[in-house]
């Protein structure tokens, strides 16, 4: 186990995600956290700053701090202060938002300027059919325009469209977004989507099936602080549906480092990292997995099935020992390689020319 301790110490985690609040300006139908204006509670400024300091001190490989929610901009001034702190510690930063603060162009520019001054590295704006019931496309466009004109790299992530909607094409064809694209600081992508309620609409197409069979890099590479001051092992869509992803409550008795390292003895985490939940179920159940995985369109959907399905859990307990040598070998080989690659990822302040920029999923 000392071997794993040393390996983990050198290699992981790279990313600290702070889910600042579950409150949101929107109340999307299929929100993974069921966020809405009604949900109360958030991390205080002191807690957020303390977690950033603690993570920086505890995890030598840390490179990126992501601020998400809920809607991170509900933190107001505290958000800028947190970004400033992370930047001052030499960390890259990203905010994930729904863009509701772009309602007016003036306010969007004021916000973008403030973000630029705080040193923000990049921002992700989530939109799509569900989001646009609450946040109009004009807000997203104003936000993206102001951000890119202020020199901030921006990614607009659009939910996979339902049959009757064309949000992706509307975004792409929006004249203000077209202008923002001229800065070359804006990217647009269609993101995978998954249902959380029985009344969920069908979406146009699942994303590439191959990605379902990939390992989940979130595990170990990311460490997440939730609004309830818990430490989570991942920032996936179903993290609050899977108790096993919660590593514990952060307090004086349980430091982030201790909680993070508490997963080192859990083989399931390594297996998820290496093979991903979809492939684990397939490898365990063979053809019997087909029914269970039918209609699965997202890796987090497979992960919640992996943890909740009794048949799968029994198979895991019964057979996991036979996979240990292979999985741990693959994990170790890849961890060392990723560590070497990480040493070459640019830090803020370095001028680089990116052919394809690094996009860490949050």
């Amino acid at each position, binding site marked *: 186990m000392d071997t*794993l301790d040393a390996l983990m110490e050198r290699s992981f985690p790279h990313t600290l995600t702070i889910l600042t609040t579950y409150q949101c300006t929107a109340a999307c139908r299929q929100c993974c*956290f069921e966020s809405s204006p009604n949900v109360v509670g958030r991390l205080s400024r002191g807690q957020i700053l303390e977690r950033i300091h603690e993570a920086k001190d505890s995890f030598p490989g840390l490179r990126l701090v992501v601020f998400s929610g809920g809607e991170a901009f509900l933190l107001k001034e505290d958000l800028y202060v947190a970004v400033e702190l992370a930047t001052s510690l030499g960390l890259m930063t990203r905010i994930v938002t729904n863009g509701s603060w772009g309602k007016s162009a003036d306010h969007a520019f004021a916000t973008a300027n403030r973000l630029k001054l705080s040193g923000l590295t990049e921002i992700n704006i989530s939109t799509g059919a569900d989001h646009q019931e609450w946040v109009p496309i004009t807000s997203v466009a104003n936000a993206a325009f102001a951000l890119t004109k202020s020199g901030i790299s921006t990614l607009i992530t659009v939910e996979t469209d339902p049959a009757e909607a064309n949000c992706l094409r509307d975004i792409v064809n929006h004249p203000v977004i077209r202008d923002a694209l001229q800065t070359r600081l804006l990217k647009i*992508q*269609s993101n995978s989507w998954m249902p959380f309620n029985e009344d969920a609409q069908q979406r146009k197409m699942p994303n*590439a099936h191959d990605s379902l069979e990939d390992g989940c890099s979130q595990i170990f590479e990311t460490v997440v602080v939730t609004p309830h001051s818990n430490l989570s092992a991942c920032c996936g869509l179903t993290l609050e549906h899977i108790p096993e992803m919660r590593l514990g409550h952060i307090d004086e008795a349980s430091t982030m480092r201790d909680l993070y390292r508490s997963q080192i003895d859990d083989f399931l985490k390594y297996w998820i990292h290496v093979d991903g939940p979809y492939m684990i179920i397939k490898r365990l159940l063979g053809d019997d997995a087909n029914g269970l995985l039918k209609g699965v369109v997202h890796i987090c959907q497979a992960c919640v099935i992996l943890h909740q399905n009794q048949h799968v859990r029994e198979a895991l307990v019964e057979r996991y020992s036979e996979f240990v040598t292979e999985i741990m070998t693959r994990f*170790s080989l890849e961890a060392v390689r990723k560590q070497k690659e990480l040493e070459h990822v640019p830090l803020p302040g370095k001028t680089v020319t990116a052919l394809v920029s690094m996009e860490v999923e949050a």
Partner: protein
Amino acid sequence: MKRRKFLKGGVAALGAPLAVGTAGRLYGTPASVQPRDISDLDKFKLPLSKAKVPSELWDGLSKVAKLWENVLTNPSESTAFHKDPTGYLGSIGLDASDRTLATETVVLLRAIADPAVKTALAKSDYVSVFSQLIDAGVFTSTDPSALQSHVEQIFRENIEEIQMSIAAIQPYVEQTKQRALLASIDSGDTVLSDDDIVSLSQVLVEHIGAGPQPMCTAVALCVVAVGIAATVVAYVSVVIAATVGILAAVFISAAVKTAIVVGGTNPESNRFGTDAGLVSSSFTGEFVKLDPAAMRNAERAVRLAVLTDDAGLQVYSAKQAVQLEVHAVLTAMRNVNLLPVSQDVLPNIIDVVTRYSWKCLGLDRV
């Protein structure tokens, strides 16, 4: 209206249990809205400490970091690993199943351990390196026409909007920047003759109308060529985002997990500024995402460059990607009459735009 209604209700219900998600939840109530304490003992785990793990596995895992060093620096270890990776991994207690041999790490380590590749790397003979790695199956031989036909299809489906974008460009460039661009292009290995540039630019001037006539020099017209490409590429990048999303031809976020970065500073990259209608570079390898084989090659080249600490390999790969992209886009532009030039002139345009893009990206300096 709907949103206002919700917010009105929300104020009254502040702090109450969440109202959304009234339909049946598929995976239970998330702890985000219903926090609950769960004992560590109640969590489902697969303890490694209770697994039947062969003791030699732990020894093997402790040697993984050293394995890298050995294969990269020790000639005899390197040769042994290259000849028989299965035997090598097994001898130190690690798994050597097909799944392990197929991991990116083993594939790349074996490539680097190849004596012929090592020799070529030592000579910075990247043409040979790439050729051998294609033979070894590490890289895939790419067909330039595949990317070109994909881009061409996108052009054809959006031709009217692209033409409108081109009509709107303002190709005016200050004289000092014209000179800078000329110097930039002229300092390359291949210098286009004035005749080449003029023949190219005459067509372009005719194509975009009277805009650049007052600065009808070879230099200015070369700038115009790059300017048109910039406009088309900027538009097409947008179209690609939609096309990719709608057709799911490539899932960008999944395909771009690895940084492909040309390290080092490049003070020249923005010297022309964006105010001149030019961006730092129109061709940055983005389009390569549309060619999964080329994308995989680019990712692996970056990884190999990191492992061998050979920036030249990375730069060579990046230059190849840009060249592939410029060729695909400009050829497709010509085929759909966005760039009405003869087949004879096209290679010159591709050459000048490729070299210009390399310079913008700092790829010509390594």
